[in-house]
């Protein structure tokens, strides 16, 4: 084959590839644009102001995942009419939580060399107080009941050369002193009554007690997960004595923890449970689907969590279920994520 002919074939191949590639990108861009266009049959959304913390009427804050111009925006519904019209703010987050007038919003922007992600601390009027860079992909966020402590977890991905690795990194911020614990891995860990240290220890899913010092979190190490009770002032975390506990969430009265329990080793299947911290008795909840979320307590008897929307992998719905294992799950807010009752 002559050089000229080979060059012609190459040029044709480049043009075909460029055409197909452009097609892929345009199609994806169109899909993305479609998600931000208003759709018929979606929930009614109006723009408005939303304040964090207790107000005149109890409300549920969440991130709006229903397709439309308010996609991913922090929104609010009255707790008595969660399926009703929602009010959307201008704040966009990937994960959100708020309590007592302090909000944490994990945001990310796509740059040229990767995503830049921040944990933004919001005041009651959604003004940014501070923001902290995050290395990885946002996963969980929590604020203590008093609004003083904030925690967030992200996945830190590996690199392109050699062996890749994934780990979680959990940070805790004290909004009174603005001191940050970069990673809970710095804490001294006790497991089964003995000091424990490993390179593969990962903390995730912090939930705070009302004393603004005690917290619970999951420690993952050597293929197992443990429920840990930590103390921020002592920089320590101690195993509670229960295994297979992920993404704990402490009840408002501080007596029970809702968590997801892995059903099969190495399979992404979880069931939601509640454990009594006094007796360590575990109760499976009535939700039959796999729950991959850090649940939120709406009150002392009910928890809420997100499940993927049927037929739309990019959206989730908020469901609630009684915390005592009775009843059955109830769809509370379609097209929503990251519930935070106020």
């Amino acid at each position, binding site marked *: 084959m002559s050089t000229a002919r080979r060059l012609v074939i190459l040029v044709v191949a480049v043009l075909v590839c460029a055409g197909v590639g452009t097609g892929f990108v345009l199609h994806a861009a169109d899909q993305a644009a479609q998600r931000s266009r208003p759709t018929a049959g979606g929930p009614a959304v109006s723009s408005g102001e939303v304040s964090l913390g207790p107000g005149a009427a109890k409300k549920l804050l969440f991130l709006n995942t229903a397709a439309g111009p308010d996609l991913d925006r922090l929104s609010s519904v009255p707790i008595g009419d969660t399926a009703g019209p929602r009010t959307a703010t201008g704040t966009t987050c990937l994960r959100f939580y708020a309590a007592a007038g302090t909000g944490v919003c994990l945001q990310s922007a796509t740059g040229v*060399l990767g995503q830049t992600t921040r944990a933004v601390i919001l005041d009651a009027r959604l003004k940014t107080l501070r923001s902290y860079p995050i290395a990885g992909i946002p996963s969980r966020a929590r604020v203590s009941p008093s609004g003083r402590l904030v925690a967030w977890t992200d996945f830190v991905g590996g690199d392109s050369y050699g*062996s890749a690795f994934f780990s979680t990194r959990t940070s805790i911020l004290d909004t009174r002193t603005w001191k940050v614990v970069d990673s809970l891995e710095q804490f001294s860990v006790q497991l089964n009554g003995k000091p424990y240290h490993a390179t593969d220890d990962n903390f995730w899913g912090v939930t705070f007690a009302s004393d603004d010092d005690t917290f619970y979190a999951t420690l993952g190490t050597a293929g197992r997960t443990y429920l840990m009770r930590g103390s921020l002032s002592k920089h320590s975390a101690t195993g509670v004595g229960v295994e297979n506990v992920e993404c704990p969430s402490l009840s408002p009265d501080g007596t029970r923890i809702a968590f997801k329990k892995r059903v099969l080793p190495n399979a*992404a299947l979880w069931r939601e449970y509640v454990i009594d911290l006094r007796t360590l008795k575990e109760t499976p909840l009535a939700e039959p689907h796999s729950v991959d979320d850090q649940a939120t307590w709406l009150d002392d008897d009910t928890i809420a969590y997100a499940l*993927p929307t049927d037929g739309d992998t990019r959206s989730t719905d908020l469901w609630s279920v009684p915390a005592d294992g009775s009843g059955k799950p109830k769809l509370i807010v379609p097209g929503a994520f990251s519930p935070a009752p106020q």
Partner: protein
Amino acid sequence: MYLADRAAPAAQKAGGAGGSAKVRAVTGVVLALGAVSLVTDVSSEMVTAVLPLYLVAGLGMNPLGFGTLDGVYNGVSALVQLVGGHLADRARNHKLIAGLGYALSAVCKPLLLTVHALGPLGAVLALDRTGKGLRTSPRDALISMSTAPEYRGRAFGVHRAMDTAGAVLGPVAAFLILRAATDGYNAVFGVSACVAALGVVVLVLFVPSRPKPYAASPAAPGVDPDGAAAEPPKARPDLRQALSLLRIPRLRALAVCAALLGLTTVSDAFVYLLLQRRTGIGEQWFPLLPFGTAVVFLSLAVPLGVLADRIGRRTVFLAGHAGLLAAYALLLWTPSTPALPYLVLALHGTFYAATDGVLPAAVADVVPEALRASGLALVGTGQALARFCCSLAFGAAWTAWGDGPALAGSAVGLLCCAVAAGTVLRPTARPNATTGARP
């Protein structure tokens, strides 16, 4: 120096633009293979860069535990390399086996569009690594067979520079796509598939099945894949002959040294983790650390390859490890200077530039052409498996004693191995001159 005078203009052709030098130190085959690697690396690094994000944000998966799998795949890839090398020698068609490897990886990219669970995804990635393992040795063999021994350091340098340029461009392309299309992971995989296919096309069109003997036409202006049929037929090397390679003392020495040094080469992931922990650089810089290494690697690969041709592969190869040792020392010492992360990354990149292409150049000098790919695979596999063992051991040492002692142990180990390698690799004969490429 005559050699130096010739070297200067050719070195500037690393970009692939072609030049008017009278002696082509960098042949069209090398540039073609460099282009194939560049394009293929753009494709695969596009996927690698967005994979964690895709797992978590796109599929809603928990990626913990994925890292262990990845280590296993790397082990598999190292073993497949042996198979690829031997098959290429046996079929006497390096282009075919390398092409199969590239094609296998290219086929995996559109498959990514169809899998949505961790199990099948793992299988696709394993297949991708198998392709990578298959193609490595035949490709390096083609580079060496198309280049005169005194230019091989430069040739491999050019190839590695182009390869690494692809690794840098890939993530940029991926995130540009994600900027244009929110959550457009399918677009990233689709474009990656197109780019990978283009790599295979370039290989098929511009890489000859058997490169022209470099001595016959060093100044060939283009590549002519069809002109290679004139080679006299030789007996097909079998497994026994491949094993007899181990009787070549110089190859044995190289294999042992590469493995020994590999045993004390801390994996990149750990280096970046150590860098972040011990220098306290901000979290947000963590994803950028591999770019630092890659940029230094790609800018120094050609000059250090040329240097290896001039002053000897052994010197440059060992100096590269000295650079790595210096990086360990800096991480242990952690002087409080803002330049520390840059210094460590510069040394880390220099280490790669001084060793990654120089080692196959040295191996090619001592392995007869009929068994070239097998010989390259032997050394490459030994090195990769040694590095894999090092990762396991380093992780265990970190757990048991902490990061400082683990690193100190690696540094002492590296020093001992480097001294041993320096002694074993003493030039018994001039590495470039005597051991020609002919059996």
